[in-house]
């Protein structure tokens, strides 16, 4: 894999999204770090919070698709074969997972600040 130039992949994403790419990358990293911090502190997953996060995540998946459609100057009606649907699924999945993790982390951190009932 050392032959695969990571900078090319980065430039492809920059070509697509511009500076927004860095923002999304930062949000992704922050979400994961926050999620891990909350999980370590609480020692368990809070299932009610997780379900709320997944609901937010559903919207996040849709947002990822809208973003992709807008930066590629196309719509998903342009999908023409199985690989397109697979890719659309992957994009939706990334949006869903990223948003879910971020939402869980934010809720966990906010809950941590409030005095426990």
């Amino acid at each position, binding site marked *: 894999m*050392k032959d695969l*130039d990571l900078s*090319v992949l980065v430039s492809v994403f920059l*070509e*697509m999204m511009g500076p927004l790419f860095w923002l999304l990358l930062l949000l992704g990293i922050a979400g994961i770090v926050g999620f891990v911090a909350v999980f370590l502190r609480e020692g368990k997953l809070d299932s009610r919070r997780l379900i709320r996060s997944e609901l937010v995540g559903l919207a996040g998946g849709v947002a990822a698709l809208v973003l992709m459609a807008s930066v590629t*100057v196309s719509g998903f009606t342009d999908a*023409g*074969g199985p690989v397109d649907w697979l890719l659309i699924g992957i994009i939706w999945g*990334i949006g869903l997972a990223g948003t879910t993790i971020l939402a869980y982390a934010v809720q966990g951190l906010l809950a941590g600040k409030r005095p426990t009932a």
Partner: protein
Amino acid sequence: MSGDHPSTRPPNGLSRRGLLKFGAAGAAVGALPLVAPPPAAAAQAPVVKTSARIVIAGAGAAGLATAARLAERLSGAEITIIDARKEHYYQPGFTLVAGGLKPQSYVTSATADYLPRGVTWVEERVAEFDPDGNSVTTEGGRKIPYDFLVVAAGLQLDYDAIAGMDTSRIGQDGLGSVYHSPAGAAATWQAMSKFADTGGRGLFLRPNTEMKCAGAPLKYTFITDDYLRRRGNRGKAELIYAANNKGLFSVPIVAEKVRMLYRERDVKVQYEHVMTAIDLGRKVATFTTPNGPTEIPYDFVNVIPPMRAPQAVRNSPLGWTEGPFAADGWMEVEKPTLRHKRYPNVFGVGDVAGVPKGKTAASVKWQVPVAVDHLVATIAGTTATSVYDGYTSCPLITRLGRAMLVEFDYDNNLTPSFPGVIAPLEELWVTWVMKTMALKPTYVSMLRGRA
């Protein structure tokens, strides 16, 4: 040459399927056919010490990519690149500019941005090649001797061969010409967009010579068709594609697919029509046909001129002396190695090479590592085994939002990078994303010798 088999490909450090697995992790999957790794030899071969003088004629895609790779693999070599043009054109983007999808600035950058360290740039044009005397002479009269010569001088758009053509009028009176220049492509978009608003007769064609990316005239027809549909004017328009011979594309299976798509989109095809003249005032194009000359009036036309080797190459002993490439002066090189057949210290890469098909950035990407391999091996006194099988690719846009990734070799074999995943003759969104988003970064990487 044998047909398509992975082992006949330029040596990969990593299989393309391997790359796909990596790419499945994200949306960048589309970028991967174009980020195939450099030949393993280039990545691992020890640097060769030499004091050889190497001249590269031309600083376009092939010249710059060659310079980057030679600079990486040689130490002490005196590498000189000769080109008068200061701007670098990203030519695969011209159709996107002419399709209103990218701004003119998208395809223009500076040659200086890609020059590798240690390479001397002579900002002149080569006026004369003297392969018997091992030297080139520039327009300014400077004689530059060499031990090895790589000709990457591109080609010449011969607009003068079309009687009545005036390139200063591109963009006016329905005259388009995507290939002319970045400004020409932008002006063509203005003319085509106006046509898409009004309808009428749109005329598309290709020259009866070898040409850069033979898919470009086809895709521009598809793009125009889609704009007419989106603006509700398709019913008011007639689209005609004038093919120079009996097919729409040199690869029969692709020609058949395009024929079917044109039938579906109601693009009328006139075979064996070669444009010879144009009357810009009357808006009439003249073609030779087997039944004599014929005139076709138009409201919009995309003129593509005959293409030939640059004059300095045509006037030199470097061209083919017989066969289909002789008339236009394409360089007489060995198909598998790009080495000159009569002058073993001379190589020809990119558009100027007299080999079948190709003349695309994808051809350059696969040709350059092979030519460099053989040149470096000659310097080192070893033998290179890498082979160029004619691989090239054409992301053929079939409507806004979809394209077909057509990949093939010298022998008209389809050579899909992702068989069973990205089907070669399937109109796909992922291929569109690749063409419009991923191609340019990978192209730039190629210029820098990294892909």
